[in-house]
């Protein structure tokens, strides 16, 4: 690790500090626009706005792209799974938009958001009164899930106050996006065979984390 060493001759620490203060003011001055306004909102408001946006997307899915067996699917099972996903999603969103003056539990939420879709996928298929109409369905799970997850990443990034790079943050954001994709697909896809859920729905988090790693700059100085 290179040593900083003393400031160049002729520049006192006080001068250097004033220079850094001027640079900080320039960064604050450049921090304008809608994104800057969103990021300056109090944490409770940012959290609420993210959840509201995601609720809107889920309502849209339910209204326009609803799974054909929605009415006949066991309601208790749907409600339980949906609730568990929703709570986990809210907790991980809270972690994603948490203010930087608090300590996070990133690793815990990576495990939670990564494991939950796998656990749900491993459950036996729901017993139904009639067969689910699966013909013509299930082929669009990956694009729909990726799109839903990508939108979540955009929304969270809009409200996130600092850039995040590195494997841990990418995994957390990717897994959370994957969790949201699973929620959307639960409302959209009628196929609940474990193999389908495991190979398409549950692995979306990994694909989204990889996508985030590709798209995010290696080390943004500020955003």
């Amino acid at each position, binding site marked *: 690790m290179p040593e900083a060493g003393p400031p160049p001759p002729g520049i006192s620490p006080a001068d250097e500090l004033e220079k850094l203060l001027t640079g900080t003011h320039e960064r604050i001055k450049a921090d304008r626009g809608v994104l800057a306004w969103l990021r300056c909102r*109090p944490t409770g408001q940012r959290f609420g706005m993210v959840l509201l946006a995601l609720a809107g997307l889920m309502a849209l899915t339910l209204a326009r792209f609803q799974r054909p067996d929605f009415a006949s699917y066991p309601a208790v099972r749907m409600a339980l799974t949906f609730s568990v996903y929703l709570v986990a999603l809210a907790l991980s969103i809270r972690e994603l938009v948490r203010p930087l003056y608090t300590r996070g539990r990133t690793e815990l939420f990576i495990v939670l958001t990564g494991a939950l879709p796998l656990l749900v996928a491993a459950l036996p298929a729901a017993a139904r009164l009639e067969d689910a109409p699966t013909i013509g369905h299930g082929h669009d799970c990956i694009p729909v899930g990726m799109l839903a997850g990508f939108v979540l990443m955009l929304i969270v990034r809009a409200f996130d106050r600092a850039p995040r790079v590195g494997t841990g943050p990418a995994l957390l954001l990717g897994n959370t996006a994957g969790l949201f994709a699973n929620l959307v697909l639960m409302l959209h896809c009628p196929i609940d065979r474990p193999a389908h859920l495991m190979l398409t729905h549950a692995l979306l988090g990994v694909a989204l984390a990889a996508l985030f790693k590709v798209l995010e700059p290696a080390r943004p100085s500020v955003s």
Partner: protein
Amino acid sequence: MLSFPFVRTDDELMAAYLAGETAAFDELFRRYALPLLRALRRRLNAEDANDILQQTFLQLHRCRFDYLPGAGIRPWIYTIAFNLQRRQARRGHFEDAFIEEEAATSAGASWPADGAAIQSVRSAVAQLPREQRRVIALHWFEGLPFEQVATTVGASLSAVKVRAHRGYVALRKIFERDDADA
């Protein structure tokens, strides 16, 4: 810590900044930037240290509406800098460097005439487990109350007190052992 009527507290400065007084932000910067920069530069190169410092205060600006009077600016600033460094995958953890720096400075200020005592304290604190060392350094060398230490290290108040107690017991053993060796 002594307080002077003409020196504004952190809470007063934050309130003034929220009311639109830019000079209050400058005063906070001048109050906390130097020790933070010193700690950052012990583990990061100058460019990264300067960048993290400026981003830390940019984040303080972004977080200003979250500020609750009494929360304390100092733990905020150090936690923000630590999180930024982690998020942006900068190499080297400055937190220990910060604590070592503060320990050295504070010990030197308390016992200016006794170099051996300073060395003895530094050496004893350095032997503690990391979690205990952080709590003791932040509480004793930084002067943070346990509530703020808990916020800074991300643990509960009771956990922080337990760590401090264990640290004191360990320090006593270290000093007794050193005395016996001498």
